[in-house]
């Protein structure tokens, strides 16, 4: 493992420990409600990590990623409902569809100032949502407009991507998250990663160094949309019922962006940290205060975002990793002594 050679031993031990705890967690937590909260944290961490490829590393601001969540969910579910194709295969198909749409949006806009890209992604997401809400039937597929799609319960079946217990979902999404983080790690240490960082920070200088900036941004966009759509299929199989507003609304797009910025965009762990901080706030206020104080969690999101951007514009992962490093250094010293 040459690529890990420059990572401190304490870091490796810590990472392994965290992973072990997360993988062992369902043994100790059996409450489906708690498991569901963890599943959603991982799902949002996963979606935000996927977003990060374009929103973080390519240095632009996509604000319509729920469209790709929706494309993933609708593609795999329609294939399953119409042709009984396993959602695992549908998942990949959804990813490809999403990547194609991502390229289509990125092609004209990624060359322009970032504001155009941000606005185009919003318009695309909203346009797609309205379109789906207006389509009852598309060729052989029953899209059912605003009524949404319902996946029939078949009980425990891996092929059908359905489980009665929350535990399999927990492991699936945790593994997806770990994989996307590993992919991020390797991407950051590759030519694509270096070129994206350069093009995001100083496009003019990057072009002078031989980088076709818009091409690399498009690559990032395609990867990002593909991965996001996989999360969409997972979400569809988790809830088994969804409609355009629930799966491709702008709220989800913004939440993903908020998590990324609060955690720290263009870092590996930022999205995970952001999801662990924001998601529980959302869940808990919704569960305990949802009826009396509607929208309170969104006020909290907004305020947290403003405050973090004011005092830690590069996200909370910076101070957190600084504290961890101090802690690790102490442990390392004690170990040596």
């Amino acid at each position: 493992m040459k690529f890990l050679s420059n990572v401190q031993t304490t870091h490796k031990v810590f990472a392994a420990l965290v992973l072990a705890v997360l993988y062992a967690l369902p043994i100790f937590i059996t409450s489906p409600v708690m498991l569901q909260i963890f599943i959603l944290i991982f799902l949002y961490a996963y979606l935000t990590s996927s977003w990060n490829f374009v929103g973080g590393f390519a240095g632009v601001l996509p604000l319509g990623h729920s469209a790709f969540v929706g494309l993933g969910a609708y593609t795999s579910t329609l294939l399953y409902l119409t042709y009984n194709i396993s959602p695992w295969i549908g998942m990949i198909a959804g990813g490809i569809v999403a990547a194609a749409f991502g390229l289509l949006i990125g092609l004209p806009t990624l060359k322009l100032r970032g504001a155009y890209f941000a606005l185009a992604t919003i318009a695309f997401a909203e346009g797609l949502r309205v379109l789906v809400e207006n389509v009852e039937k598309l060729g052989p597929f029953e899209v059912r407009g605003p009524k949404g799609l319902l996946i029939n319960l078949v009980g425990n079946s891996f092929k059908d991507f359905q489980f009665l217990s929350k535990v399999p979902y927990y492991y699936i999404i945790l593994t997806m998250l770990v994989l996307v983080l590993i992919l991020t790690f390797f991407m950051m240490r590759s030519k694509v990663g270096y070129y994206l960082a350069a093009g995001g920070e100083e496009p003019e200088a990057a072009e002078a160094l031989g980088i076709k900036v818009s091409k690399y941004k498009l690559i990032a966009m395609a990867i990002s949309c593909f991965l996001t759509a996989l999360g969409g299929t997972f979400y569809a199989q988790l809830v088994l019922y969804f409609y355009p507003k629930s799966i491709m609304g702008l709220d989800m797009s913004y939440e993903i962006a908020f998590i990324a910025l609060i955690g720290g965009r263009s870092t590996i762990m930022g999205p995970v940290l952001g999801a662990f901080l924001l998601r529980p706030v959302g869940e808990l206020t919704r569960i305990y205060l949802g009826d009396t104080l509607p929208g309170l969690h969104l006020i909290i999101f907004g305020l947290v975002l403003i405050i973090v951007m004011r005092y830690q514009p590069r996200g909370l992962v910076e101070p957190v990793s600084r504290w961890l490093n101090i802690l690790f250094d102490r442990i390392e010293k004690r170990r040596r002594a």
Partner: protein
Amino acid sequence: MIGYIESVINGILMGSIYGLTAVGLTLIFGVMKVVNFAHGSILMVGMFAAYWFITLTGFNPYLALVVVVPLLYFFGYYMQKIIIKPIFEAEKHVREPITVIIVTTGIWYVLDNLALLVFGAEFRVAQTSVTGKMVEVAEMYFPLAKMIGAGITLLLGIYLYWFLKHSRMGKAVRATSLDREAATLMGIKQSRIYNIVFGMGCACCGVAACVLVPFYYVYPTVGVPFDIKAFVIVVLGGLGSVPGAILGGIIIGIIETVGAQFMAATWTEMLIYAFFLVVLFVKPSGLFGLRQDY
């Protein structure tokens, strides 16, 4: 035939008000290169202010302009000064001020949901002396409130155009939008220009709010549809261009009302997004190519 003319004119009337909100957005973008995502929420704040003013005093609805417009000017001025400025300073030299853009989204979330907490989700209608009145012109009927609204918009558009072209402050604003560094060297204090432009952008929302309230529902998320339309409009008109924003607004208004003659309202919404994406593909500098900042 007469039905189409009627809906085209109705589209122009409504579209000019869309254009007005878009003018505020484009002014701020032109100078700061920041898309203010809280723009619709500021419109919502203005609408609630106008609603309460009219409902509590029972005065003529357009008197609300006197109160609401300065109120929103200072709202925007201090929002920029207190919240946005420190964040903007930190990434002044960055080409894409992403942090600022996302912070305006945060402001939007806070404002909309605060309104939801305070006023509840219900739709309110202000009862005013012009509400529901129609005017007949050559067998066509137009809502009086929309006609007055479009008239006020037109006047404001002309004033803003004059202001930017000829007034001292307007020239300073344009200079800053062309080249920040150079403007600073000429002795223009950037941060003050930003405060003023933000204030003006929000004041445009204030005017739009006052002319909307006599014929439009008021509710906490009323800004969202206006916001998204304003985004589309500013890109159509060319980001940063004031006349482009008003023309873009009118186009959107016409698509909406004429489209409604042929299809369901949700489809016209689709049509607007599709039109927008096509423009981005074909002519990202906007339909009129008035600005080249992209």
